[in-house]
């Protein structure tokens, strides 16, 4: 049976069993070129967005719900961090330097590149069947037991099986789909809703989220969810073998051990 996301190698590339009976390392195709390129562009953009997002956030580390909110109104919550503005009461005796100018410019530029890269990825994913083959779980594949196992195995710090080096397990598929279909669109939407000019052309984009300040608060929490995803994603890559998995996302091939009797 063909493993999803991989191509079966022609027979002549297999090592003849007469030569060696020891486990042999060979390189199997893993990620297509477009997935690899868009993955790393998104990675760079994500770090730029995260860093500049934090910089913008510290100029007003207070959050509100609804349309409006200033230091004269009660916040929904305030982060216990110092601020880059003297007008914000933080309890700290100092004010951080203002970094909003370049932070905003880089935030929007990285967002543009990430969104255009994402569009390319989605078009590619639909045309080539990448979503269908590698991310959607068919009813036959899905079982609650498989989902539970994919949860508990990494919690027991168990390395993934050989099969998982060439395809995604159920939990991975659901997580990646959640990030691609829910979190990325929501972070883009809540970001755009904060734009006064965008909101003038598409007022429903703000009202559906509950107002300008609600959009900002949602943007913050979705960003937190994305940062959490990044943390778990890298932790899983480390558990599975950092250089093997990272190498596969760079070269497109993964080293798999094949037993030959």
């Amino acid at each position, binding site marked *: 049976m063909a493993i999803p996301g991989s191509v079966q190698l022609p027979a002549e590339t297999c090592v003849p069993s007469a030569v060696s009976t020891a486990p042999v390392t060979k390189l199997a195709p893993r990620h297509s070129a477009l997935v690899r390129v868009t993955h790393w562009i998104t990675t760079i953009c994500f770090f730029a967005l995260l860093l500049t997002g934090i910089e913008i956030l510290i100029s007003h580390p207070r959050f509100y719900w609804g349309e409006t*909110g*200033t230091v004269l109104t009660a916040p929904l919550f305030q982060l216990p961090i110092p601020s880059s*503005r003297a007008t914000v009461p933080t309890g700290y005796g100092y004010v951080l330097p203002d970094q909003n100018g370049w932070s905003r*410019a880089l935030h929007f530029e990285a967002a543009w590149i990430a969104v255009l890269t994402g569009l390319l990825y989605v078009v590619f994913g639909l045309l080539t069947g990448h979503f269908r083959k590698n991310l959607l779980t068919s009813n036959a594949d899905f079982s609650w037991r498989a989902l539970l196992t994919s949860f508990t195995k990494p919690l027991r710090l168990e390395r993934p099986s050989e099969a998982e080096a060439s395809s995604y397990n159920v939990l991975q598929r659901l997580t990646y789909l959640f990030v691609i279909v829910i979190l990325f669109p929501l972070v883009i939407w809540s970001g755009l809703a904060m734009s006064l*000019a965008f909101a003038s052309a598409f007022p429903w984009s703000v009202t559906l989220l509950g107002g300008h300040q609600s959009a900002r608060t949602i943007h913050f929490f979705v960003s937190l969810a994305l940062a959490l995803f990044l943390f778990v994603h890298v932790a899983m890559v480390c558990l599975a073998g950092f250089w093997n998995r990272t190498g596969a996302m760079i070269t497109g091939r993964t080293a798999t051990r094949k037993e030959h009797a």
Partner: protein
Amino acid sequence: MINLSRRKLLVSGLAATAGASSLAVAARLAQKYGLVPPDHGGIYGLGETLTYASQRLLTRHSLAREFPRSRISPRPFPNELAPLTEEFKRLQAGRFADWRLSVDGLVAEPASFSIADLKSYPSRGHITELACEEGWSYIAEWIGVPLSRVLNLVGVHPQAKYVVYTSMERDTWDSIDMADALHPQTFLCYGMNGNELPVVHGGPLRMRLPRQVGYKNIKFINRLTVTDSLKGFGKGLGSAAREAGYAWYAGI
């Protein structure tokens, strides 16, 4: 094999030529239709240009959201002010009777307006949100005369592309394109929530652009200059804020 690589070479050559020429055409068209901001250079120029161009295409005539009177924020937050100059204090002592807004540049008749002159034209109001790039926002009723009214009075030359506006505050000036200058919600604002515009909010005269964030809404306006190029103003980047690192276009 030779045929295949020759075909490949031909196809990729054609694709590269098509790509390069369509980029050149796009740049030419963007320039022609006013989709290139003055700060299009540098490492952030790509992002600034994409934002400005796309928002100009999508929002040229769209109106900022307006709110019912019941949603006016009870306590509008006045941001920090630089220390007021001696000249400002002198004008303030005279209740701004001597305040003048001068209008020059590419206009048929350069003119100067007192606050009373501006108030003699039909006043307009809108209840809109002022949002700061820092993240906070409030809703207020803004009362004033549409900038387009004043521009029509002085007669703007057809080649005009920008309106530069200058504050009495030191080193404070900015500019907007004609789409924003002629937009019906762009006000020379002298009133707020039914009263005179308080000094802390920019009185006697503030530029009010509800589709751009707070820092484009400059306080203490005393000069307008209509121009076809921003090259002669400061470093040619379009605003004092831009020279301090803040984007010229602030619709986002």
